[in-house]
């Protein structure tokens, strides 16, 4: 048995060495959960461009997971050259707690270092049997909502804030009413997954719940992967402007001497070529022309975190920190 595994080990090691020796430069991009398909396409395009520009063979390694969890891993020593996370607060943590980058990282690239944006929509079963059209419909009696855990998932925090912003900003709304609405909403959630992709498979593959509150890109991907005949995407009347930022992790990039390629990689995300890839993967590109050429990414009023919550630091401290509003309103198991 052991000789057998030793033989196998040898064979595989030889194979792996053959694959590895072709690569001259490697980058590690630590990203959040739903960007798997996006960065697969981006990496292929950028590696080809980098090859013609410099002659180097570039391999971009990927790690995906809940945004908060990924930030924690980078702080704990996961050697990311660049991070592309779901929200600014998580990259702030890498700067503040991990001291791995400059606190002013978000000013280094255009548009708050977010080359693409997204928003939060609803995914319902085909034909929309519960007639869900807006946020207010979600708390009808009997509806089960699937959404990930805001403590670990970036998408879940955007979803929570979108619901809150709707209730606070609607005519006659207030912070107190928003709190009551969001508390009621989470009573309809039977289980919280740790990441966006986990809740999509819970809803889509395991058939749990009547509505999934998710990233717009994740909703379209569910249609692409699991069948357009199974689900409908519902755009509420308002939602939130989700800005997932990108940044070079200074200390790691300097240690690996990859700063130049890491910066070029993030710059590339703003190029026409990359913006088109982003739109095709159902992210909202910053380029207005390309965005307009993808009418499926519907126009709707979007609140920003700054205007409703006074920025991510404040939103995080008020709502998601230990003992924050979310801890007060959410009781596991619902009801």
């Amino acid at each position, binding site marked *: *048995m*052991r000789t057998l*595994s*030793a033989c*196998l*080990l040898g064979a*595989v*090691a030889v*194979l*792996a060495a053959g*694959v590895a020796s072709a690569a001259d430069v490697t980058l*590690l991009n630590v990203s959040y*959960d739903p960007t*798997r*398909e996006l960065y697969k396409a981006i990496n292929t395009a950028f590696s080809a461009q980098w090859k013609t520009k410099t002659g180097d063979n570039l391999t971009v*390694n*990927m*790690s*995906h*997971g809940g945004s908060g969890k990924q930030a924690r*891993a980078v*702080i*704990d*020593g*996961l*050697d990311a050259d660049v991070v592309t996370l779901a929200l600014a607060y998580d990259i702030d943590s890498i700067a503040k*707690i*991990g001291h791995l980058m400059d606190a002013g990282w978000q000013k280094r690239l255009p548009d708050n270092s977010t080359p693409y944006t997204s928003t939060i929509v609803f995914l319902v079963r085909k034909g929309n049997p519960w007639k869900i059209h807006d946020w207010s419909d979600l708390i009808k009696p009997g509806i089960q909502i699937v959404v990930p855990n805001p403590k670990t998932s970036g998408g879940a925090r955007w979803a929570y804030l979108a619901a809150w912003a709707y209730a606070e900003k609607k005519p006659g709304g207030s912070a107190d009413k928003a709190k009551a609405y969001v508390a009621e909403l989470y009573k309809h959630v039977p289980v919280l997954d740790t990441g966006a*992709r*986990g809740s999509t*498979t819970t809803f889509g*593959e395991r058939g749990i719940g009547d509505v999934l509150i998710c990233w717009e890109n994740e909703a379209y*991907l569910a249609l692409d*992967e*699991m069948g357009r005949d199974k689900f409908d995407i519902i755009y509420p009347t308002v939602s939130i402007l989700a800005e997932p930022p990108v940044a070079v992790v200074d200390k790691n990039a300097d240690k690996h001497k990859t700063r130049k390629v890491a910066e070029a990689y993030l710059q590339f995300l703003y190029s026409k070529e990359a913006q088109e890839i982003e739109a095709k993967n159902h992210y909202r590109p910053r380029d207005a022309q390309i965005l307009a050429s993808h009418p499926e990414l519907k126009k709707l009023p979007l609140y920003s975190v700054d205007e409703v919550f006074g920025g991510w630091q404040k939103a995080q401290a008020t709502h998601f920190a230990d003992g924050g509003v979310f801890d007060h309103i959410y009781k596991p198991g619902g009801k």
Partner: protein
Amino acid sequence: MTDATMTEFALPRPRAATADHPVARALLTATAMFFIALFLLLPLITVFAQALKNGVSTALAAIVEPDALSAVKMTLIAAGIAVPLNVVFGLAASWAISKFDFRGKSFLITLIDLPFSVSPVISGLVYVLLFGMMGWFGPWLREHDIKIIFAIPGIVLATMFVTFPFVARELIPLMSDQGRDEEEAATSLGASGLQTFRRVTLPNIKWGLLYGVLLCNARAMGEFGAVSVVSGHIRGQTNTMPLHIEVLYNDYQFVAAFAVASLLALLALVTLTVKTFLEWHYADEIAAVHKH
């Protein structure tokens, strides 16, 4: 006379305590088979059926894809290092515990059992707290460019932690049962320590040892929780087979996920087959050892 006959008729036929009624026996066997079919066989068949849904070539393609090969390699490295080290440790610990008397012996036994009672997530977090950047040794390690967590050493350490008790736990009862008479006899006849171990102890415990190694290997290859915490999930680099299966599943690549899962299940089945074959081939010898 009539009374006596009556009594004989009224009393049930006396029977041995172990001889069951044939109906009860059939019922028990059927229940066991039913549960085995429902909870073991059916899921196993599902895994293979899902993997082969789109044909053998699709399943094979998922296995020879570079990220999958890297995951297989990681799993074999982790098991290949953890299992031999656990054999050495298990032998040393059970030898010490069963053949010598010393202070803190029961404490040592409790410690060996620790990984069984601790959740694998904690087993992983321990290493993050020790070797992570925020941990005790993190900054020093970084300065000296040594990677432990989010790299192979961390995965091997986590695997070792969770598989720690397997060999020792198999051997301690066996060696305690056998006592130290044979070793003492060997020593008194002039055998050296090593000779005693090779000629007396090892032959006595080899079946228990083998069983411990097989269990240890199965767990080492299948471990998910602890490894997940220290892996960093870098595709094609630090994913083991169980982690790669999760990645594929979450990428909507269901057939590929089940193909790799089948490979992992096959590795486990190979382990079982080897064990069964050895037991069958050496049945007499095993029976002799068990008589001790």
